[in-house]
């Protein structure tokens, strides 16, 4: 039963039993892990708020023989991201990033860059960058790092060049194929493909190429943004195999006026 020690970000935390929590983390050293925090819901729990979603902590835990869940022994806050708790829009964006990482990573698969990108995404949201665009760009970064990088140069069906410099005008994105398809292949495909203009494609390629610390310098409005949001939403649904709660989950219920920070 070796004691593991690693920086970690809480992706989700669920009530368990009388006063416990089952917490899903993405850790710097061991990838995604799930552990039990005994007594975490008690008033005087030693964990305090360290196991709340989005909090980055220094985690101590050990593996119990014959149990798939780790036992969490200590968690000390490194970065609390308090701002993400005080604004519904930021909270929804952070929740989308956490849900995406939880859905597309396997337990125990190491990915230090995924960890760093998630931390960077939370910092960018908290720093006041456009929340919807920041969430979109970091989803693209995380897809690229988790083995689901969208194919943006060639047709995923026939390998014909369809990138921004190929001269093809009517590009389509096929979510189930994970990338672009040429007009001929798009016509032959049974599933719906989504249109993607040269501007949207260039933005997608830049988001995949740029490092997390500068990716929020990218700007997008109007059609480019709407197209890319639709493409990524459809692609995320395919790779996760489910509809993740939307990044603007209140707006989805027709309550956009309810958005915002507490006065």
């Amino acid at each position: 039963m070796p004691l593991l020690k690693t920086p970690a970000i809480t992706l989700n935390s669920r009530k368990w039993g009388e006063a416990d929590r089952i917490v899903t983390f993405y850790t710097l050293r061991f990838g995604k892990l799930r552990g039990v925090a005994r007594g975490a819901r008690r008033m005087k729990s030693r964990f305090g708020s360290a196991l709340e979603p989005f909090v980055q902590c220094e985690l101590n835990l050990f593996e119990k023989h014959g149990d798939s869940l780790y036992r969490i022994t200590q968690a000390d806050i490194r970065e609390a991201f308090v701002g993400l708790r005080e604004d519904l829009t930021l909270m929804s964006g952070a929740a989308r990033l956490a849900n995406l990482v939880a859905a597309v990573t396997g337990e125990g698969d190491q990915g230090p860059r995924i960890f760093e990108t998630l931390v960077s995404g939370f910092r960018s949201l908290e720093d006041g960058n456009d929340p919807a665009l920041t969430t979109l760009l970091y989803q693209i970064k995380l897809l690229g790092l988790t083995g689901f990088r969208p194919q943006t140069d060639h047709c995923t069906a026939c390998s014909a060049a369809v990138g921004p410099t190929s001269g093809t005008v009517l590009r389509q994105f096929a979510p189930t194929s994970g990338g672009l398809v040429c007009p001929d292949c798009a016509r032959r495909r049974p599933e719906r493909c989504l249109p993607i203009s040269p501007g949207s494609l260039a933005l997608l390629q830049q988001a995949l190429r740029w490092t997390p610390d500068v990716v929020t310098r990218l700007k997008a409005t109007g059609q480019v943004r709407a197209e890319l949001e639709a493409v990524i939403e459809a692609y995320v649904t395919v790779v996760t195999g489910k509809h993740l709660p939307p990044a603007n989950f209140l707006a989805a219920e027709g309550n956009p006026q309810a958005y915002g920070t507490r006065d």
Partner: protein
Amino acid sequence: MSVEHRGLLSQLVRELVRLPGIGHKTAQRLAFHILKTDGEEALRLADAIRAVKERLAFCRQCRNIAEEELCEFCRDPKRDRSTILVVEEPSTLYAIERTASFRGLYHVLLGALSPLDGVGPSDIRAQDLIDRLQGGGVKEVILATSPTIEGEATAIYLTKLIKPHGVHVSRIAYGVPVGMDLDYADEVTLTKSIEGRRDL
């Protein structure tokens, strides 16, 4: 010994396993206990479950558990009707009631918003609260949702919803539990307790 595929007993185990926090082994142990216990005691348990399902419902006004159309608090004429304290679940209501420090009315949301799990406003009893406010007479709403991500999301959402009705909205205090050593408090709790300090 497994009781799978053994008729009535396995049926009881299957029902017990559906309860929260009960695994197969525990369900099996409970089933054998019920089997061994005398008939009257087992039937009392069955009657209690039946009575809860047949005679308890949610209060028409506040959504607390009630044996009649209105719960005991909504019926009580001595309660202060100008203040409503909002909680996520009935269990929290009874925890607050045990303190004997609140004499107003309650509103139970029967859940909390969760951006992580996709629990939205239509999944909680927020609109019922707004309907109560529109009835007039309420001066303050105290939000006593948990200081978790779900509780915070719910408090922010309700604040936006309530303020246009001209009702004062307050949030229960954040801070250090009584009897705790400050050395052991985490950063978020300490920060919140400093922000929420009060004059003496």
